Structure formats: structure tokens, C-alpha cells
């Protein structure tokens, strides 16, 4: 399985722990990644679609020329790209974008590129049975709450279409269980983490972060996992602020999806860059019997 790998901005910026973890895990899974270095930011729902659609069309055209599907590692990148790709299925619109924005560079997008999040690649392309075979350090019933990131779930007709309903509705739960963990269904698992309004209304943003993490704990989870680095910036990065805002201790470690997979596949916490998290993952490492140096 070979992909045009789109790492996004955050995996090399605010969450630099994610990018190297993805490369290691993908290598072990045998996913061949050809990184798209010459690809612009998706716009993340901040840039107007009038400019982000042409930028994304350019990325799609490049992957199309490589003859590869794109693999993303961020729910927001995936959501924005899927929506842009859907609009670009319209021949008239796509031709306008090609003519106005891409032709000068000699590019043309024909509308055939598939964009797949790593979570979907693992569940749909690689397969949970093969994943189970690679587990050398099972999670031993570790209760983990899944947190998808809203853009990986919505709009449902695009993100979880009928033909993928079986695999995508419970993809994270299925991965957690394939790794030997117990998937804990928190009420916020498909909701927004609060990150997008950190600038405009920090109070509400922290309330959302606090509610999601506290609910995961209340349901019995000792850790959370997310396929979205923006959710990670919020749930891990702002967790201490959310705890102060709510006036309650939280302290629940949050894993990026590839880190949890990597840990179960035998990578060390250092190889998965767990030391870079703001909420310590040490209690989980100890529980899994990973040797922790003092």
C-alpha cells in the first residue's frame, strides 16, 4: 500500500511528536509513504474556500499525477480536503479552478484523487486482523476513550458514507480493541474539542475541553486517543487550563492515534515521543509494563 503522504502543518509545528511517530508506525505496517512536500495548507476552515479550494485542487492534482491516494494524519486536514474534493467533483467548478488557478503551473485536476485518513487506511486498507498480528505489547484491557475530531465525522454523508459505514463509524473503537484495549465511549467522542474558538472565546473552549476530558474519566477511561493533532493541542495542551477553569483535577493522558498503535507494536515511549506531551503518559507506560527510566 502506497500513499501520497500529506503531513499537514501541525504535525511539524505545534505537535512535532506526531510526524516521526507516523513514519515509524507506517514503516512497521508496511505503508509506503511518499511525502508531498510541495503541497499547501488545506486552509483548516479558516481560509476562505475561494482560495483554499484551488490550493487543495493543486494538492489533489499532484497526487493524481503520482497515481496515489493521499494519506492524511489530521481530522481537520481530512475533513477540509474531503469537502473540497466533493465540490471539485462538479465538472464546471473543477474546470474553472483548473483554468483560473492551476493551468499556469501546467497542472490539471481530473477529479480522481482519493483522500484517506491514516485511521481509515489502517482499518480499511491494512485490516484489523493484520494489525492484531503486529501487537507485541497488548493494551491489556486499558480503558481508552476515543476522540475523533468533528471533521472526521461530519458532514456524515461525506465522511461516513453508506459504503464505509461499517468501518468508519467505529474505526477508533475497533483499533483500540485490536490493540487489546477497551474502547470507552465518552459523550464528546464525535464532538468539537473546543480548539477552533480558543482565540475568540477561551472560556467556552476550556469548558468544552474540560467537559470532554472529565466525561472520559467519569466513564472509566484512563487515557484518550485522537486522530486529530488539533484536538491533541486542546485536550493535552490546554488540559491544565481546563482543569483550572473547571476547578477540578483532570490529568488524563491523550495519545495521538499512531502513538497508541506504535506503543502496542513495541515501540518505546521515546520512539513515540511521548515525553513531549504536556500531560504525562507515564502512568499508562507503567501500567503497560513499559520500562520507565527514572
Amino acid at each position: 500500500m502506497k500513499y501520497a503522504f500529506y503531513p499537514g502543518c501541525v504535525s511539524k509545528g505545534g505537535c512535532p511528536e506526531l510526524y516521526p511517530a507516523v513514519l515509524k508506525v507506517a514503516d512497521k505496517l508496511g505503508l509506503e509513504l511518499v511525502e508531498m512536500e510541495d503541497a499547501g495548507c488545506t486552509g483548516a476552515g479558516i481560509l476562505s474556500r475561494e482560495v483554499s479550494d484551488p490550493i487543495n485542487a493543486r494538492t489533489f492534482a499532484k497526487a493524481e499525477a503520482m497515481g496515489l491516494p493521499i494519506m492524511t494524519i489530521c481530522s481537520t486536514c481530512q475533513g477540509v480536503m474531503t469537502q473540497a474534493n466533493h465540490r471539485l467533483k462538479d465538472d464546471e467548478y473543477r474546470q474553472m479552478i483548473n483554468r483560473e488557478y492551476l493551468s499556469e503551473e501546467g497542472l490539471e485536476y481530473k477529479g480522481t484523487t482519493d483522500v484517506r485518513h491514516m485511521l481509515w487506511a489502517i482499518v480499511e486498507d491494512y485490516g484489523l486482523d493484520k494489525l492484531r498480528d503486529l501487537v507485541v505489547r497488548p493494551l491489556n484491557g486499558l480503558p481508552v476513550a476515543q476522540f475523533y475530531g468533528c471533521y472526521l465525522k461530519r458532514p456524515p454523508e461525506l465522511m461516513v458514507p453508506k459504503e464505509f459505514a461499517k468501518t468508519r463509524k467505529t474505526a477508533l473503537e475497533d483499533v483500540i480493541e485490536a490493540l487489546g484495549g477497551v474502547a470507552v465511549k465518552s459523550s464528546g467522542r464525535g464532538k468539537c474539542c473546543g480548539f477552533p474558538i480558543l482565540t475568540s472565546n477561551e472560556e467556552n473552549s476550556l469548558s468544552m475541553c474540560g467537559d470532554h476530558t472529565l466525561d472520559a474519566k467519569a466513564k472509566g477511561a484512563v487515557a484518550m486517543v485522537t486522530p486529530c493533532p488539533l484536538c491533541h493541542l486542546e485536550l493535552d495542551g490546554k488540559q491544565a487550563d481546563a482543569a483550572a477553569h473547571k476547578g477540578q483535577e483532570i490529568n488524563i493522558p491523550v495519545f495521538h492515534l499512531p502513538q497508541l498503535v506504535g506503543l502496542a507494536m513495541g515501540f518505546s515511549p521515546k520512539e513515540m515521543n511521548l515525553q513531549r506531551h504536556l500531560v504525562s503518559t507515564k502512568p499508562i507506560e507503567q501500567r503497560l509494563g513499559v520500562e520507565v527510566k527514572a
Partner: protein
Amino acid sequence: MEVKIAIKRSNAQTNGKAISQAYSIEMDGNRTLLDGLIRIREEQDPTLAFRGSCGTGFCGDCTMTVNGKGAVACRTKLGKALKKADDGIIEVGPLKLAKVAKDLMYDAENFHWQKFKAVEPWVDPVAPPAKGENVVANDEVQDLRAVMSCTQCGLCDQGCTVLVVDKTFLGPAALTKAYRAVFDSRDSRTAERLQKLSMRRGMWDCTHCFEASEHCPKRIEPTDRIFALHDKAIKAEAGPPKVVHHYKSFAASVKAHGWLDEARLAVETEGFTNVRGLMKLLPFAVKAGIKGKHPLPYMLHKKRPGAEHIKRIFEKWEDNGK
């Protein structure tokens, strides 16, 4: 078929406490939940309170929760609801985010009307049209007509993730109403409206998580309407300074480098002269820096290969907008 319905009720008899009351009716599965509720009220319990008017999904009156999810009762078939019900009993309750007035009736004044009034959802033309009528382009009318098909059912607000934590947020329903006025070319108050919508608890508090669009039974796409309001406000530089800085810095960074410079974004969002704001960033920056999570800003943030093409796309877009 026998249909069992458990209704969450709270009224003077229950001292305002929510209790679940079970009913059983004999009804065809193709009939609607509203039909069922009317049957219960007429034949079993005249004290049951709920709203319901047109019976065809046009008035938005009979919104409630069915099996835990927001639904319009007159568009909910009993048979289908039964299939999705736990233990063969349809669970019916009032909207979760609205204050309950009685049983299934919610306090619409606070949930809807005050917020709708706040966005002044009517068109204020500059002056009477010269030739007796204002002619509006067909595309614009088609677009506005879709928004005007909103029945004020409240399902978008019921699904909103922000309203869960802050009931004072304007919410997607009122913002969609605002869109109707802002994007009507006959209206004379666009700039003023965008400023008003930028008030605290206004349009910038939306997380654009697409819950509203998912919940809208009329497919009006409230989330897309809020995106459009954001775009228009940023173009007009209307909005709280911090938000405008944030959007502009994001665009400037992608335009210059092809991808986002997150550290620059954090600094520029606060503003170079906003010492207090910049100081607020420090504790997080230090914590993240110690953990090796700090992104490198400005000169250290490398351009992506092909960044010149991204820049060209931006310039072309900017030219098109002039």
C-alpha cells in the same frame, strides 16, 4: 401495532421535576409520532402538553427529542422510531438545550425569539426603489430562498456543541437568519450587521463543527452560512481585532510559506503592541518549549517547495475579489 412511548414530563403536578410516564397506543407504524401524541392527549391524558401545528414539517413547532436525539415529531414515523428504541419503548422528551415550559413544550422565547430579534432578520433597503421594485439576481434569490425555508425548528441549535457550554451563544439558527439579511443585496446595513454579529457570544464563537448542518432537516447548511458570514466579515475587516489578526496572519503565513507558521500566528493574533496578550502566551510557550513542542516562527519557519505557486494562487484570488 402496539406502540409504547415513554414521555419525559415536568409540570406543576410533578413539582417541576422530570418524570417518565409510559403510554401504550394502537397505531399503524406509518403514522407519525405527532399523531401518536395527539391520540394520547385525546384518548388517555388531556394534561399532556406539547406543541404541534401543521403536521407536515413546515411549521417547526413539534421539535423534541426522540430516543435521545432531536427530531421533528410530525416527520418521525412511529415504526422507525420503534426500531431505534431501546427495549421496544420510544423515549420522548423536550429539547435538551432549552428550558422546559411544560412537558414537551420548551421556552421558545429564550431559546429562539430573543436571539432572532437580536440579529434583526429583516431587510432595510437604502431607499424606495426608483422603478417601483428592486430586482435581485436569480442566483441570489435561489440562495436566500433556501435560507428562508428555515422553519425555526431549533434542531441546529439542539445539536450545537457551543450551546451545551454556553446558552447565551447566538447559535446557528439565529446566525442563519442573520445570513438572510447580510447576503441580501437590497440591504443597506451590511457593515453594521457584521459588526453586531461580531459581538461576544456572536458568530466568532461558532466552532464550525458541522453539527448544525447535520441536524438541519431542511438541509439549509447553517454551518456553511456561518462560514460565509466569517468570510465576508474578514474581507470587510469587521470583527474583534484578535479574530481579524488571527485570520489575516493565517492567510499571510500560508501565502508566504505555503503552510502555516503556528508560532507567528500566536504572536500576531495577540498583536505586537499588545504586551498583556503576549505575556499571556508566555506560560504555555515555556511549558511547550521545555517539552520540545514549540514550533519555530518567522525566519526559522521554512518555505514549502512550490510556495511560489501557493502565493500565485492567493494573488489571483485577491485580484478576482477586487
